[in-house]
C-alpha cells in the first residue's frame, strides 16, 4: 500500500474537521492543551480548583436562594441579633487574605523565609477566624437563638457551618503546602491554587455576612 503525501483529493477533508497540521499546544487555546508532553501539566490543578469553586458556589447559591425564598414566605420569620464578634471575624479573614497576598508576592520574588512567615500568618489568622465563629455560635446560644428556634437562626447556623467546613479544608490545604507535603504539584502551583481557594472563601464570607446582616 503506497504511502503518499496528502493530495488534492484528500484536501476535501481540509474543511472544518480536516487534515490541518496539528495545532500547537496553546496556540489558539484550542489545539489540544496538553500538547505532546507525556505528563500531567501543572495548569490542570488551577483548572481543577476553578471548577471546584464553581461547584461550591452553586451549593451556596442553593442555600442562599432557599434563604431568600424562605424569608419571602414571611409569617414566622424573626430577626435575631447578629453576634458583634462577626465584625471582628470578618476583619480577621480579610487580613488573612492580605497576608496571603504578601506571602505569594515574596514567594514569587524567591524570598523563601518571608514566604513561610506570611504563609504561617495566614494560617493562624484562618484558625482565629474559625475560633471567632465558634464564639459567635456560643453567643447565639447564650442569647437563646438555637438551630431550630426560627428559620432565620437555622439559616445562620447552616450558612456559617457550611462556610466554616469549607474554610477548614482551606486551612488543611495551607498546612499541607506549608509543610511541603506536595507530590504531583510544584510549590508554585500549590501556593497558587490554595490562594485562589482562600480568597474565594474570603469573598464568599463577606457575601454571606452581608446577606445575614441585611437579610436576617
Amino acid at each position, binding site marked *: 500500500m503506497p504511502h503518499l503525501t496528502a493530495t488534492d483529493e484528500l484536501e476535501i477533508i481540509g474543511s472544518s474537521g480536516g487534515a490541518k497540521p496539528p495545532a500547537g499546544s496553546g496556540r489558539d487555546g484550542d489545539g489540544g492543551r*496538553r500538547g505532546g508532553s507525556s505528563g500531567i501539566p501543572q495548569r490542570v490543578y488551577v483548572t481543577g480548583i476553578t471548577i471546584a469553586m464553581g461547584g461550591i*458556589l452553586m451549593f451556596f447559591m442553593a442555600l442562599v436562594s432557599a434563604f431568600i425564598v424562605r424569608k419571602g414566605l414571611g409569617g414566622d420569620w424573626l430577626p435575631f441579633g447578629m453576634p458583634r464578634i462577626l465584625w471582628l471575624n470578618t476583619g480577621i479573614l480579610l487580613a488573612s487574605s492580605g497576608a496571603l497576598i504578601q506571602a505569594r508576592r515574596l514567594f514569587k520574588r524567591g524570598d523563601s523565609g518571608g514566604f513561610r512567615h506570611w504563609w504561617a500568618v495566614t494560617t493562624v489568622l484562618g484558625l482565629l477566624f474559625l475560633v471567632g465563629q465558634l464564639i459567635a455560635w456560643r453567643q447565639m446560644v447564650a442569647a437563646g437563638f438555637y438551630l431550630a428556634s426560627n428559620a432565620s437562626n437555622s439559616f445562620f447556623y447552616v450558612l456559617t457551618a457550611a462556610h466554616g467546613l469549607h474554610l477548614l479544608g482551606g486551612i488543611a490545604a495551607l498546612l499541607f503546602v506549608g509543610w511541603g507535603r506536595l507530590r504531583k504539584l510544584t510549590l508554585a502551583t500549590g501556593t497558587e491554587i490554595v490562594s485562589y481557594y482562600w480568597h474565594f472563601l474570603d469573598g464568599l464570607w463577606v457575601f454571606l455576612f452581608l446577606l445575614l446582616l441585611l437579610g436576617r
Partner: protein
Amino acid sequence: MSAHAGSIHHSEAPKGWIRHYIFSLDHKIIGTQYILLGLSAVTIGVILSLIVRLHLVWPNLHIWGFANGIVSPEDYLRVITMHGTLMVFFVLTTVPQSGFGNYFLPIQIGAPDMAFPTINMLSFWTTFLALIVLLASAFVPGGATISGWTSYAPLSAVGEIAGPGLGLGQTLWVVSIALFCGGSLMSAINFLGTTIDLRTKGLSLMRMPLTVWGWFITACLALLAFGVLLAACILLLLDRLAQTSFFIPADLSVSGVVLHHAGGSPLLWQHLFWFFGHPEVYIAILPAMGIISHVLSTFSRKPVFGYKAMVYSLTAIGFLSFTVWGHHMFISGMNPYSALAFSILTLVIGVPSAIKTFNWLGTLWGGRIHFTAAMLFAIGFVSLFVTGGLSGIFLAQPALDLYLHDTSYVIGHFHLIMGVAAIFAMFAASYYWFPKMFGHMMNETLGKIHFWFTFIGVYCIFMPMHYLGYVGEARRYASTESVNYMIALHPVNMFISFSAFVTMSAQLLFYFNFFWSIKHGKPAERNPWHGTTLEWSVSTPVPHDNFAGDYPTVYRGPYEYSVPGAADDFIPQHLAPEQVAKAG
C-alpha cells in the same frame, strides 16, 4: 519523594492485587468498577420492577422475602422508591458517565489518565458507600422509605408518624443521596479538568469525538446540579433530625399528632429537587447521545451528519436544562404565570433534541449500514428517542399536564426517553467497546437476539402505559382496585407484565454474553470495527498509561469515514497525512 519534584510520569502500574483492582488509581479500572457497580444496581432494580409488575397483576402472589410472602402497600412503595433511586442515581447517572466515560474519555483525548486519579478513586468509593447506605436502609427497623425517589416534603420530612419507613429508612436515603452528590461532584471536576487540559497535541475542541462532548457537557451539568441537591439534602436532614422548619409548614396534624414546626415550604423542596432533577435527566441522556452518534457514524461508515450542529445542540440542551425544572411542578400550586414560562422553555429545549434526531437520520442517509449488535441498539435508540420525545410535547403543556401528571403516561414517557433510551446506549457501548476493554469480542448473534427481544419488549411494556394514562391510571398505586375506572384496565396491565417478564428474561442473554465473553469470546483485533478515534489506535489490552509513553498527535476530526480518495473507508485521527493510503 521530594516536596515538589512533581511526578509527571506515573507510567508504572501499581503492584499488588489490592492497589491494582480495589483501590486503583487507573481510570480504566475505576471505569470498570463503576460499570460493575451499575450492573449490580440495575440487577436489583430490575428484580424490584419484576416485583412491581407481579404485584400489580397478582396481588396475592407469594413472593419470597416479604412478610408472610405478601407485598403490602408499604412494601410496594418501598419497592418503587428503591427501584427509582437505584435506577436514576446508581445506573443512569453512573454507568454512561462515570463508567464508560472514565474508561474511554482519557483514551479518546490521548491522555495518560484522568487529571486527578486520587479524586477519581475517592469518587468511586464515595458512590459505592452511597449504594451500601441505600441498600442498608432496607434492613433497618421500619424498612426502606416509602416516599418515592423524589422524596417530597413533608412526607419525607416529618418522620415515622407519617408512615412506615419514614424514620431511619428515610434518613439513610437522604444520607445516601448526599454521599452520591459528593461522589458525583468530585467526578465532575475530574471530567472537566481532564477534557480542558489533557487533550493531546492537535486535538482541538472541534475535533473531539461526540462521546467526549457528551461527557464534557454532562460533567458541567453535574457540577452545577449536584451541589444544589446536596444543599437540599442537608436542609431536609436538619428538618428531620434537628426540628428545623425549612420544608415543614405550621399547623400540621399527622396521625392525630400536632407537629411543632412553623412556616416552612413544601414547594421549596420541590424547587431545589427539580432544579437538580431536570438537569439530572440530561445527565443521564447526554452521554447516551454522544455514544449513539459515535456508534451510528462508525457503522454507517459516514461522518456524523452536522458535527457542529451536534455540538451546539448538546451545549444548548445543557444550558436550557437549568431553565425548565418548573415543568415538574405544573400542578404543585406554583405561580401560573411562571408555569407558562417554564412551558415555553420546555418546548424550546425540544428543538435541540429534534436537531439531534434529524442529524442522526442524516448520518444514516447515504450510509453503508453494518448491522452489528451495537448498531442495532443505536438505531433502536433513535426510534425510542423519537417516541419518548414526542410524548414529552404533551407534558410540556401545563393545560395537558393537568390531566396526565402522575399518571402511567408519565411513567411510559420517562422510561422510554430517559430509562430505556439510556440503557440502549449502554448496551450499544458495551457491544462496541467490549473488544477494547477485555480483548475479546462479545457474541454478535446472541447480541442481536438480545436486541430484538429488548427492542420489541420495551415498546410492548411502555407504549400501553401511555394508554393507561389516557384513561387516568395513577402512578404509585399499590393496588388499582379502589378505583372503578382503573379496575377495567387489568387486561392492559396483564399484557404489560407479561411483556416485562419476557424482556427481563432476555436480559439473561446479555449477562451470559458479557461474562462468558470476557474469557471465551473470539479474540479481538486492535480495531475490529475500523474506527477512527484514538481508543482504536492503542493496543489491547490497553497499557497502564494508555499510550505507553508514545502520545499520539491528532490530525483531523473524529469521524473521517469513506473519505473520497482514501484507500480505506476510515482515516484514524492520529494518522499523519503522509501516512494515509491513497485509493487506487
